[in-house]
């Protein structure tokens, strides 16, 4: 018999070979293949232990615990703590069996880890009428979103908790089960649904799951990750001149209900672009004028919009050209002087001669105001000739590719104001806020900024002052440092109007603090009390410690408003150095100068 001969060549005595051949004869190839995995797993757990126990005393018994099973990742989504309890239980049991296990709460789980997970246990409860617990919502939505990854490399099983008196019994567990399978993951053992009295069912599932892991262990490596589509750039190098059209993956107004502000967090897809950026870089984004404004300009000039005009992108209708190729807001000096040239208006001429008057005139006005105040019969060609070409708006990038990979994140403050009797809005921010949604595309390029970079030495302390959208690059900094094993201390100063609604990325900062990625944070909310508090006040309150950080080599970063904030921060910094260093104002200025020369004082202000 082939089988027996084969076995005899193996490390078995005759008796063992006999028994094995009896046991194995008649099995088909599928069964044998299954067994090969089973034995591989077995060899690394129970049999190894038996063998180790029988080793003569004095030999290295630490071998017993070295089981080369794949690590099990246990993910729980818990509202009342039951799922968490079961997750801990599974964790303990796995470790007892010598299988490595890692446990995470869905609430704080980083989805990028999915890539490196081979075995996943999902333990989740169901709430209300078939909804996931709030703690699991993000992860749940992620798996059901466009961003969900291919999970062909992953084996999983779901333990679902619920209450059978509800119609949608264990619905969330069922949903997880279905979506994981849809994403290509394979079931280790079938899902187990548990009722209120879950102890026994949960235990059975746990046993089945762990046994299956041990048994299929040998096969896991055989499950190959399917090749993902190759991210070749097709030879195209995207740049300022050759814009990439990025799809909007996520768009969230970060300000809570009742806020006086509107700040949008955007996630854009760079997949296939080959675009690389670093924390501190900015992203140029092209917006488009609102149809309402374009229409008003056409009405005021008595043009239809259907006229064909020549643009740097070729011939287009006037309507499209006004929408995509030219700026209608704000009014620029060049447009004003071109218009004066054309109309010969004396009043405007005078304004053009006075620098202060120009600034005053331009402030809050757009081309429509100008046309309405000084009417002139413009041809379509003339209209285009006075307008400034559409330029990109720059936003400090709020992400690091080490973490978000093929994405880039932005933080955009939406500009809206009323001036000269009309509600007005920022060209690009309103495009993103009002006219583009998830799934739409936007033209972008990366603008490198070598003057705003994390210290080369990742263990150097950093102080980050970033109120409002100024906090964006510091989120990128934290993401960059998050993946480092050794990192220096970091300190964030953040400010905005109201604590309850305007604390941008609040939960992320809290998490970074918890994980020690961020060492310290101080916040100032200007409108929560009668006295207005700003970031510089927090700096001054912490002057002693801030100076100590500088003395220890901290790098100081400031990002955000240039007109007022950056100046106030600079003054506060000087004051701190003067007071804490016990030196003259001149010496303090010199100290700051030295910081700048050694690249330890960097500003990204606008």
């Amino acid at each position, binding site marked *: 018999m082939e089988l027996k001969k084969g076995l005899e060549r193996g490390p078995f005595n005759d008796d063992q070979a006999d028994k094995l051949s009896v046991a194995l004869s008649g099995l088909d190839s599928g069964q044998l293949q299954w067994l090969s995995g089973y034995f591989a797993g077995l060899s690394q757990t129970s049999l190894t232990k038996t063998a180790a126990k029988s080793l003569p005393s004095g030999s290295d018994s630490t071998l017993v615990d070295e089981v080369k099973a794949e690590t099990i990742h246990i993910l729980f989504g818990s509202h009342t703590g039951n799922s968490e309890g079961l997750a801990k239980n599974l964790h303990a049991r796995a470790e007892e069996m010598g299988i490595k296990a890692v446990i995470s709460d869905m609430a704080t789980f980083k989805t990028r880890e999915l890539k490196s997970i081979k075995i996943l246990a999902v333990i989740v409860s169901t*709430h*209300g*009428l078939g909804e996931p617990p*709030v703690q699991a*919502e*993000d992860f749940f939505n992620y798996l059901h979103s466009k961003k969900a990854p291919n999970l062909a490399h992953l084996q999983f099983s779901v333990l679902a908790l619920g*209450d059978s*008196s*509800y*119609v949608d019994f264990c619905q969330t567990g069922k949903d997880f089960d279905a979506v994981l399978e849809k994403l290509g993951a394979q079931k280790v053992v079938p899902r187990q649904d548990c009722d*209120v*009295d879950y102890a026994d069912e949960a235990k059975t599932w746990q046993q089945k799951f762990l046994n299956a892991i041990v048994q299929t262990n040998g096969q896991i490596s055989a499950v190959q990750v399917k090749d993902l589509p190759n991210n070749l750039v097709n030879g195209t190098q995207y740049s300022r001149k050759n814009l990439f059209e990025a799809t909007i993956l996520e768009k*969230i*107004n*970060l*300000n*809570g*209900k009742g806020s006086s502000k509107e700040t949008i*967090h955007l996630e854009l897809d760079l997949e296939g672009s080959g675009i690389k950026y670093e924390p501190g870089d900015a992203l140029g984004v092209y917006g488009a004028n609102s149809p309402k404004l374009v229409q008003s300009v056409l009405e005021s000039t008595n043009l239809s919009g259907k006229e064909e005009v020549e643009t740097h992108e070729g011939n287009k209708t006037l309507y499209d050209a006004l929408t995509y190729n030219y700026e209608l807001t704000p009014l620029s000096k060049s447009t004003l002087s071109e218009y004066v040239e054309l109309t010969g208006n004396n009043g405007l001429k005078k304004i053009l001669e006075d620098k202060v008057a120009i600034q005053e005139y331009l402030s809050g006005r757009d081309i429509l105001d100008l046309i309405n105040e000084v009417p002139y019969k413009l041809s379509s060609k003339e209209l285009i000739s006075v307008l400034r070409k559409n330029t990109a708006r720059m936003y400090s990038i709020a992400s690091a590719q080490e973490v978000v990979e093929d994405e880039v994140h932005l933080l955009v403050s939406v500009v809206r104001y009323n001036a000269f009797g009309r509600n007005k809005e920022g060209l690009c921010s309103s495009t993103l806020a009002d006219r583009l949604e998830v799934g739409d595309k936007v033209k972008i390029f990366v603008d490198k900024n070598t003057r705003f970079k994390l210290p080369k030495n990742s263990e150097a302390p950093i102080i980050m002052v970033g109120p409002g959208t100024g906090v964006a690059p510091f989120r990128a900094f934290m993401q960059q440092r998050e993946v480092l094993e050794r990192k220096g201390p970091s300190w964030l100063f953040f400010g905005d109007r109201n*604590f*309850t*609604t305007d*604390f*941008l*990325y*609040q*939960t*992320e*900062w*809290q998490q970074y*603090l918890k994980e020690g990625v961020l060492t310290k*944070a*101080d*916040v100032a909310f200007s409108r*929560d009390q009668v006295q207005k508090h700003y970031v510089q006040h927090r700096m001054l309150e912490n002057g002693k410690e801030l100076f100590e950080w500088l003395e220890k080599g901290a790098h100081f970063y400031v990002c955000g408003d240039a007109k007022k904030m950056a100046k106030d921060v600079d003054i506060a910094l000087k004051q701190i150095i003067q007071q804490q260093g016990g030196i003259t104002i001149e010496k303090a200025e010199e100290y700051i100068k030295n910081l700048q020369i050694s690249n330890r004082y960097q500003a990204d202000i606008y």
Partner: protein
Amino acid sequence: MDNKLNYKELSEDEHIKDKSDFLRGSIKASLKNPLTGALHPDDVMLIKYHGSYQQYDRDLESERKQKKLEPLFQFMVRVRAAGGITTPEQWLSLDELSDIHGNGTIKLTTRQSFQFHGILKRNLKSTIQAVNEVLLSTLATCGDVNRNVMCNPNPYQSPIHEEVYKLAGEISDYFLPKTTAYHEIWLDKEKVAGTPDFEPLYHNNYLPRKFKIAIAIPPNNDIDVFANDLGLIVIVENNKVKGFNICVGGGLGSTFGVQETYPRLADVIGFVPKEKVFEVAETVIAIQRDHGNRSDRKLSRLKHTIDDRGLEWFVEELQNRLGWNLSKPKSYHFKSNGDEYGWLKGINNKWFYTLFVEHGRVRDENDYQLKKALREIAKIHTGDFRLTGNQNLIIGNIEEDDKEGIEAILALYGVKNHPKLTGLRKSSMACVALNTCGLAFAEAERYLPSLIDKLDVIMRNNGLEKDEINIRMTGCPNNCTRSSLGEIGFVGRAVGRYNMYLGASHNGDRLNSLYKEMLSEEDILRELEPIIAAYSKDRLEEEHFGDFVIRKEIVEPTQRPLRVLN
């Protein structure tokens, strides 16, 4: 402690109490942390003893999570007033506070307390300070201690009310925690060096769970005496308080899916003369302190301590500790656990006006300007304000000459006659539930009024619009509005779904029984319509709805009847 557990077996809450240094924890530091509107998790538990629950706006939960904002944490602050009586000055101060720091409303609770909702962490200290400035307090309005002592608020019936009300206050004060933590944290009092904290009754770890006391003056059971850990029924002879029937082991909270938890009425175990009442109350609390379950908080009320060992054991333990025996309970009779509305003249010849406050929420709504009306009344009122156990308000001790003026204010602000005050609405109670209560599975206060609108159509069609049927709704089985004592009781299961219970008595001495589970509004109306129609047609004279559904075997009577030891 006979059931002394090893440290590991104690519940998490016991550990927190143990290391809290007499309820201090790190509350001071938590209040100062500017990065979160929440407290440290341990302090969330400890702050209950100081009179506050950390909550968050559940309506905004998902939205804020997506916005990368933490939940909108906010605090409920509960203010105690013994027997639920406050002065006009105190009322004005509470009214103002609710506008400055709260959500602009005041909730009158089912246990004669005031609640503010929506207070942000940064305003918590000034709120509690302001409460103390008008000689009210928030101390021990929550937590594992004795809570404020309830007492029938209506003095018109009997000359002994004043005496009983005073006693309620004294018992309430007597069982307050003695730690000075409250004064240090909220009132900036320095701890006197070399004076160690000492809790003569509660010891270091306080009670295993909350403890509730109420005093009822028959025939009124508006405070639901049997729903308390310790109930005292006043026994009067010759117009004097002779003593009290002692009831132990009441508590209506339960947990879905946990069989060992259930609503239970207090058993009447005996009579004690009035001079012994402190001694008895203290001993009952001490037994619970020593024998209550400290490993599972779901099973830790006095009712569990008694059911685990038997009522007979409890009585014996009590008598052993007292060194004397209780007498047999005296007879008593309760007529109703509801409120009587409108003008009533007290035996002191002053007037009392009981005002319907829908689910205890004092606020201005369209033409029904309740909050403004009460503010204006407080400005001229020389008497007091009294909270009932049914979330209503009595404007008390009004001089004959002031009656007209107060009535004019009520009329001016549109609150003299509630536009929809039917018998059903009058007898309704609902807890806060969504959006602030962290325990709620379903709506209660925000929903019951509209359900009653629909039920009233059925009642009217059957000629029952004036009939008072106790209807009570809670958002979860913790049962703050004592829905187990509703002739119709609803307990929230999920948003829009309720368990419906029927058949409690009209005077609070019989629990209701489960009728059907997981009913939607449509189901509720469909189920109740024929029952109400039958009640209208087939009821006996004076027969209450709760009694009717039992007689007609629409539900089985409760498996846990009240016991009276004789």
